[in-house]
Structures are given as structure tokens and as C-alpha cells.
């Protein structure tokens, strides 16, 4: 056991140590701004300006109160919840039925329709900003949370349909046959058979589309003119509007907007990674 290590083994060990340190630094670099945001939101303004990275010595939740006042973050939070939940519910239902149809049945124009949906992924959504604004204003449907949710659902469709279709294609045919033999109809196949089987992919669609809707900025900015309808990302822009910026309330505002996302990430990070990889690589 007293054998001395060979030179190559020592250099290998040093190399591995270096790799470990390097990746650890990178992880720190990715996490730190978020952690910094959260703990800075609990400091008072003078101690923040004195030492930007110092940990808080006492907790100042008053930053949250002034964030709510400046940015109307409470109203914005409710709006974000309403819009995101509606968008996710609409998207998951619509994408489920369409995805299963694409995966299981034949009809004329199917390939064209599917290609059309998939090509939706290539379109830069900002190009749709003006026409959708004009379109909705024409029918005075801007300043409407439900319509904004539908816009988000529409943008989520291509990826969601793709995910559901590739999943539903793997479900064995015998299951459908058994339902038909038992006298069930197509609705039964969809909602009593495919729906429970598709739970894993539907939960992926739910999580990913929630993140997208919660974080969306440009369409909310343009379509929601009324202050009482603004979502969280828009409310954040109120903090810099004034002549002087208060940093710690702003950090509190950013934390309010980010905490739900971070919690969802903590709970479902495996699913989020898998879903995003599948959606982008094969898309």
C-alpha cells in the first residue's frame, strides 16, 4: 500500500481538482446573482450601498411593502397568476386533443397542418406584435386578461403539440381497440384512456408553459395599457421610472416576480430540463 503514485497519476489528480474548481466557480457565477437579489431585498438601503455583497444583519421586510406600493406588485401578482393559469389551462387542453389526433389518426392535409404548426416555432414572435395589437384593438379586445392568456396559449402551441404528438405516438394500439370493443366512443378513448396515460407529458407542458407565460414581457407591455391589468414583468419597469432608483425595494420587487419561478424550478428541475431539451432538440 506504500506505493508512491506515478507522475501521471498525480498530474491526473491535479487536473481533476482543477476541473472541479472551475465548474464550481461557474455554478457559483450562475447562482450568485439570484441569491444576491434575494438577500439584498432584505437589507436596508444604506447598508446595501455601503457594502453591496454583505449579508443582511437584520431583516427589512419594509422593502417588500414599498415594492408593493411603487410597483403595485400585489395587483400585478394577481394579474400574472390569472393570465398564466388561464393560458396554461387553455394550452394544455387544446394541445392534448390536437396532439393525440396528429399521433393516432389519418386525415387529409394532416402533414401540411402539422408542418404549419411546427413552423410556428421558427417565427420571431416580435414580428407579430404590431398586427396582434392592431387586430385586438379593432375589436377592443386589448386590455383583456383572458385574451392575453389566449395569445400566450397560441405561442405555446407548436412546442406543446410537438411534445404531445411524439408522446402519444408511443401508446400501443391495443388499448384503443379494447375500449372500442367495450363499446366506448372516441371521447372515451381521449379522456378516459389517453388523458391518464399522457399525464407525464402533460405535466411537462403545464410546467414549461407556466414559466413562459409568467415571464412573458413584450405582448403584456403592448396589449395591457391599463395600470390595473399589468403583469409582474411590466410592474418591474416602474422602479426605474423615477429620478432616483431605490435598490433594495427594487430587489424586493424582482424577488416577488422570481420566487414562484424558483420554487417551480426547485420542485421540477428534472422535468423542466428534459422537456426543454426534447422541445428544442427535436423541434
Amino acid at each position, binding site marked *: 500500500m506504500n506505493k508512491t503514485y506515478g507522475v501521471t497519476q498525480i498530474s491526473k489528480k491535479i487536473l*481533476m481538482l482543477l476541473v472541479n474548481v*472551475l*465548474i464550481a466557480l*461557474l*455554478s457559483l457565477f*450562475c*447562482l450568485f*446573482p439570484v441569491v*444576491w437579489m434575494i438577500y439584498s431585498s432584505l437589507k436596508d438601503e444604506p447598508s446595501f*450601498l455601503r457594502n*453591496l455583497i454583505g449579508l443582511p444583519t437584520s431583516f427589512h421586510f419594509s422593502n417588500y411593502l414599498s415594492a408593493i406600493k411603487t410597483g403595485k406588485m400585489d395587483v400585478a401578482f394577481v394579474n400574472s397568476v390569472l393570465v398564466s393559469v388561464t393560458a396554461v389551462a387553455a394550452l394544455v387542453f*387544446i*394541445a392534448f386533443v*390536437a396532439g393525440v*389526433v396528429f399521433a393516432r*389518426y*389519418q386525415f387529409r392535409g394532416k402533414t401540411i397542418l*402539422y408542418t*404549419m404548426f*411546427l413552423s410556428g416555432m*421558427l417565427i*420571431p*414572435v*416580435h*414580428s*407579430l*406584435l*404590431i*398586427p396582434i395589437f*392592431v*387586430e385586438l384593438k379593432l375589436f377592443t379586445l386589448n386590455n383583456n386578461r383572458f385574451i392575453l392568456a*389566449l395569445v400566450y396559449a*397560441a*405561442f405555446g402551441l407548436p412546442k406543446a*403539440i410537438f411534445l404531445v404528438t411524439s408522446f402519444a405516438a408511443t401508446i400501443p*394500439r391495443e388499448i*384503443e*381497440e379494447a375500449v372500442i370493443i367495450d363499446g366506448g366512443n*372516441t371521447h372515451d378513448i381521449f379522456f378516459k384512456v389517453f388523458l391518464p396515460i399522457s399525464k407525464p407529458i402533460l405535466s411537462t407542458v403545464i410546467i414549461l408553459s407556466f414559466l413562459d407565460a409568467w*415571464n412573458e*414581457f*413584450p405582448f403584456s407591455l*403592448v396589449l395591457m395599457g391599463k395600470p390595473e391589468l399589468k403583469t409582474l*414583468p411590466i410592474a*418591474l*419597469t416602474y*422602479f426605474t421610472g423615477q429620478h432616483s432608483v431605490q*435598490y433594495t425595494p*427594487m430587489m424586493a420587487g*424582482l424577488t416577488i*416576480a422570481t420566487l414562484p*419561478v424558483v420554487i417551480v424550478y426547485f420542485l421540477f*428541475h428534472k422535468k*423542466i*430540463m428534459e422537456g*426543454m*431539451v426534447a422541445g*428544442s*432538440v*427535436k423541434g
Partner: protein
Amino acid sequence: MANNKVLQPKKRTLFLYMFPSVVLFLVFTAIPIIMAIYYSLFNWSGGKKKIFLGLGNYSRLLGDSIFGKALLNNFILAACCVVFQVGIAFIIASLICSKGLKLKSFHQFAIFMPVVLAPVVVGFLWKIIYNQDYGLLNFLLHSVGLESWIRPWIDDVDIVMKCITVPIVWQWIGLYVVIFVSAMKNIPEEIFESAALDGAGGIKKAFFITWPMTMDTVKISVILAVSGCMKIFEHIYIITSGGPGTASMVGAMYAYKTSFIKQRFGYGSTISVGIMAVSLTLVLICNVIFGKGKKKYE
């Protein structure tokens, strides 16, 4: 497939199931594209008066120096994202897959985290980091004695684009790391083992096995990064809103400013259609360069 007829539902049922998704797509994607192309032919500020210009807006677009600047910035961003985002992500992914690394899943968790953040939040965080007087970056430089490096990062015309690139690479590098890690995990272990028997070291393995075996993933990542960079909007809107002057202007920002700040919906649409055309052309070029592009359904 003898049972296919029994399983095939009535046409009406299929129509019912497809109806909501098709309507949603038509109303919020297909029709708006056609509308954008239509508006791009007019001089129109949102009111009743619309003056038909034909291709007039487009000939103006070709001579528009701000549009040229914006596209150039988009290209710079795209190039940086391909080199730094995809390139570094590949290296990091191979390091994460190497045997000696501890806490693998923690590192993936940490590096991927910025991907789920709102681009607006990322923009604000980095705006505070870059702030001249109260910014984290200048604070850190000061505390390690590099005062000479301190500068007004995002107010400096010459370096503002470089500063903008960092948060964008920072936010999405994790996506590419995870994409590459999952591609590398699909390489059969036996190939590495037999290479090791033949005396291949880590770097040789990366070059001669990992790189060629993940080539398809690399291609897709490049396309993803390029098309992603053509859409950049929120980071710019929050950090610089295109300034100082037009130093950090990008296509989406210019289209937004022209249409919603200056109320020129006609020319704004022309800019949007222009960006869309350039973006689709870039993706097409990438596909041609890489030969067979993405896998398709069926």
C-alpha cells in the same frame, strides 16, 4: 392495419378536436403574419389615414442606417452566442460527463437555473451589476484593487454590445450544457472503454469520439442559438433600450420603438417583416450548410 377503420373516428369528431388549435394558430400567428406584410406596404400611423407606398418602405429599409446597425448587432450577438454559448457549453458538458467531477447534478441544477428566469429580471439584475456608481462589477473591481478597470460599462458606446452579450450568454448557456450532456450520455460506454484500452486520453476522446458523435446536436444548437439571437428584445429593452444613441440597437427593439413609441405602424411592420426574413434566411443557410437539417415527423 385491418382495425384502422374501426379506430378511425368520424370526420366531424376529428374536426371538433382540431378546431380550437387551428383557430388559435390562425388568429394569433398566420393572419398576423399576413397583416404585417400588408401593413408594411403603407405609410400608416394607426389612424384612419393609410397611404399606399408599395415597396417604398422596403427601399427605405435598405438605406436605413439604424436598421443596418441593428442587424449588425444581431449578427454580432449571434456569432458570440455560437462561439461562447454553444462552444463553452460543449466544453462544460464534456467536463460534467468526465468521471472525476463531484456534485454533477448540483452543477447542472445551478448552471441551468438562469434559463427559467424572466429575461426582464435578468436584464434588471445585470443593469444593477453594470451600474457605474452602485454596480456589483465596479464594486468587485474596486475591492480587488483593479480600479483602472472601472468604467461606465453600459454607457460606453464601444463596449456596450460586449456588455449586453454577457447576460444573454449567461442566461442560456445552461440550456446548451444540458442539451449536450444528454447527447453525450447517449454515446455507448463501450466506445469509450475500447478507446481507453487503445490508450486514448480524455482530450483525445473528446476530439475523436464525443465531438463527431454529438455533431447533430451541435448543429441543432447552432441553429437554436442563431434564431434565438435574432429575437433578443427584453435584455436590450431593460439594460440600454438600444442606447447610448443606437449603439446597442437590435432589430426587435428598433421595430418596437418605430411602431409603439413613434407610432409609425407601417414602417414598423416593414422592419418586423425584414427581421423575420433575415432570421428565416439565416436558419435556412444553417440548414443548407449542415446538410440534412432537423428531423421531421413521420
